[in-house]
């Protein structure tokens, strides 16, 4: 169930973030469904060969975000929250948007120009959609 979480040494992000992201993806695609029991901290640590404290950190953050629920002495489950996957995509969108802004700033674009470029991208996609529909 959990051995397919992959930790990359070359990914610049901390291990706990990589673990959080992969658990969220698992939930977003429906492999782990609300109410499912997830591996205990120690089980996952042993399976991934990653320290207990790292997994503990990932679980604590996931709990804070409302993705999982930990019951004292009973382990953790996927939170019974029906809007989970849309919320996860929402977070991903926010991340991508930040990335876009950062790249724009790196290119020396003003806020206005960045917004303009985004508008252009939307128009391009809409147009593509239209041509597809009229064909």
């Amino acid at each position, binding site marked *: 169930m959990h051995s397919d979480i992959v930790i990359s*040494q070359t990914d*610049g*992000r*901390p*291990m*706990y973030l990589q673990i959080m992201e992969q658990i969220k993806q698992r939930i977003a695609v429906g492999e782990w469904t609300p109410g499912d029991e997830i591996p205990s901290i*120690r*089980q996952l*640590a*042993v399976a991934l*060969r*990653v*320290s*207990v*404290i*790292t997994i503990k*950190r990932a679980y604590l953050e996931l709990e804070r975000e409302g993705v999982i629920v930990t019951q004292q002495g009973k382990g953790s489950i996927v939170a019974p929250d029906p809007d989970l996957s849309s919320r996860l995509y929402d977070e991903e969108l926010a991340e991508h948007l930040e990335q876009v802004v950062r790249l724009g*700033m*790196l290119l020396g674009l003003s806020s206005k120009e960045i917004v303009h470029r985004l508008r252009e991208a939307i128009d391009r996609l809409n147009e593509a959609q239209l041509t597809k529909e009229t064909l």
Partner: protein
Amino acid sequence: MNDLSVQFEGVSKKYAHFTLENINLELPTGSIMGFIGANGAGKSTTIRILMGLVHQDQGSVHVLGHAMPAEQAAAKLDIGFVSEDMRLYKSATIAWHMEFIRSIYPRWDQPYAESLLRRFDLKPQQKIKGLSHGQRVKAALLLALARRPRLLVLDEPTTGIDPVARHEVLGELMAVLADEERTILFSSHNTLDVEQISDQIAFIDRGRIIDIDDKEIFLDRWRRLRLVLPPDVTLPRFPGIVEVGGSDRLPVLTTNQFDPDMVSACQNTGATVQAVDCMTLEEIFVANVQSRREGQAV
């Protein structure tokens, strides 16, 4: 029961050319501590004191509730020790060693020993002198693990072994921790291994512990900020700046007290924050050692 497996309080040991000074450390039961230091920093001396092999001049050492070195006989029943220079009998086989250890330690777990033989790809009839370095490390580790000690002390367990063997060894170390009752202390200069499996990390340099904390706190506190400064702008003094590198217009700040407010404080001066980079344990260790050495210039 004491929930600390290892406790050092103000431990010192003086040699002619090296002094171990005021070592304090606590290792909670059920966790792994990685000990990082350059060669000659004092890792092995600290471990020998822990094992009762070297007697401290000052301070107290408790291991599994036993005062060291006075109660070392009792403590050692529950400690598995593997070091680089382990003494195995060259002309004897692995099977002979297994039998020998079994005759001394009543808790020897034969089925576990046999499963380790398979997982480590070792043959019991092999003689020690015919083993490669990596096989010898795995054999020594097997002999220590199958005793089911409550504390494992490993001096450089992954040094000089190939990547596949390292992967197996790290996996077995993690498996030991599955039951929450066992504790591991290991030293290494392979920071990647330490970063991966340690709960707590101690940096040792020139006979002193220069930093000790939870791994996650270490990785959270340290950041490298790459900035672009407009001309004639000077940055305010931030707390915890360990190093300022780069150039005047493109400074690179290394901090050990990162706070997201630092980013907005930089931006408020008109600077552009190009990146806030996480640092690997290796980068943190090197930056830490260098800044301390500069601070206490000899």
